[in-house]
């Protein structure tokens, strides 16, 4: 079954700084809706003065991802956290190949002896049809 990999989101911003305006608007208006739509994510809001506003996402495999939300509008923040909520906690690195399979071979993997006859097969002179 589907288990959302995002555990919790922490919103850390200052109550007075100018670049945290979008964050404050988001918390006032859209945070409750987001929490209602995603009941498996815990939202924490805590004040922090003197530093840039950011949102910290913690995933089930222990990854912690921080994103700056300075000078972002409320809608942009909603888009950002929806993106974070649909991600898994795996590192964001180049994926080597876009395909993977658990059953690489259905009829058995080829090896140099696949289509060679076994040494027990007897090959004699052809019998005359009667």
């Amino acid at each position, binding site marked *: 079954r*589907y288990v959302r990999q995002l555990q919790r989101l922490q919103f850390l911003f200052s109550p007075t700084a100018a670049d945290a305006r979008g964050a404050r608007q988001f918390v006032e208006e859209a945070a409750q809706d987001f929490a209602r739509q995603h*009941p498996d994510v*815990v939202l924490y809001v805590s004040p922090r003065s003197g530093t840039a506003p950011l949102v910290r996402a913690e995933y089930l495999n222990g990854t912690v991802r921080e994103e700056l939300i300075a000078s972002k509008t409320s809608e942009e923040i909603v888009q950002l956290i929806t993106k974070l909520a649909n991600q898994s906690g795996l590192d964001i690195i180049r994926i080597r190949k876009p395909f993977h399979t658990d059953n690489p071979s259905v009829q058995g993997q080829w090896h140099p*002896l696949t289509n060679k006859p076994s040494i027990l097969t007897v090959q004699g002179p052809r019998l005359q049809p009667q």
Partner: protein
Amino acid sequence: GSGPPPEKKRWLRAYLEMQRLQAPPQRRSEQPNWDYHAEIQAFSHRLQENFSLDLLKTAFVNSCYIESEEARRRELGVDKDAVALSLQDNTGLAEQGLRFARAYLTRCFEGAYPNLPARGVEALVNFLTGQELVSFVAQNLSIQDLALCRDFPAPPQVLQRTFLAVIGALLESSGSERTGIFVRDFLIPQLIGKDLFEIWEVVNPMGLLVEELTKRNMSAPEPRITRQLGVSTVLPVYFVGLYCDKKILAEGPGETLLAAEEEAARVALRKLYGYTENRRPWDYSKPKQGLAAQKAISSN
């Protein structure tokens, strides 16, 4: 006159950063921003299950936690009455959960692989309810954050007990059908990609094969070399085929003739038990409502 306010010392920031990096890892519950009740609610929603929160909270309480809490309160000199915590253990729930999980998994495997002997089914169930696997599943479901335990990080035994207690709590809250689906969804996918004989250690596959064939009234297998390559080199490859009444049963490769014969016996056993690599994958579809009613009627 007064200019800009004087800065704190320049080295302070680097020093605080060093302190932060060198601090020992702490439990999540001791770091800022933690609400236990909210986390437990989120946990039950994440698993898409409806838990009764009291049972779930009891399921996360381990006995080592209760002991350490009582010892701490006694050391701090609190009254004897206040020392006794009104917290219940999760051992009862864990036992219930383990019993149910084992019974359900045994039923599943007996239904899916009817030719597998009891020892094989037991080996599979032991693997799926063993410490390593269950603690791995529990870690990835963040049970290590919610479990109340004396040591940090929580040892795998504690994680296993807590996960089984969660299963027990689900059993009491939602009934056996939903708990069965839960166990199926979280434990059985751990078998993907695993071979039967990685999980079930068989010392003498040839003897086991002879037993199985006598049970089915087939004659004893006759090993013959089917193919061989590089006999006089350092890395020979022999393919030994097992024949029953001159009909092929299975074929297996190996470096020496003995190893090839053993491998052929293992391949034959896999075919007989129906645990080959190209078997039908496990059925994770929703069970139909009628089946439960049918089972109830047939058991009455």
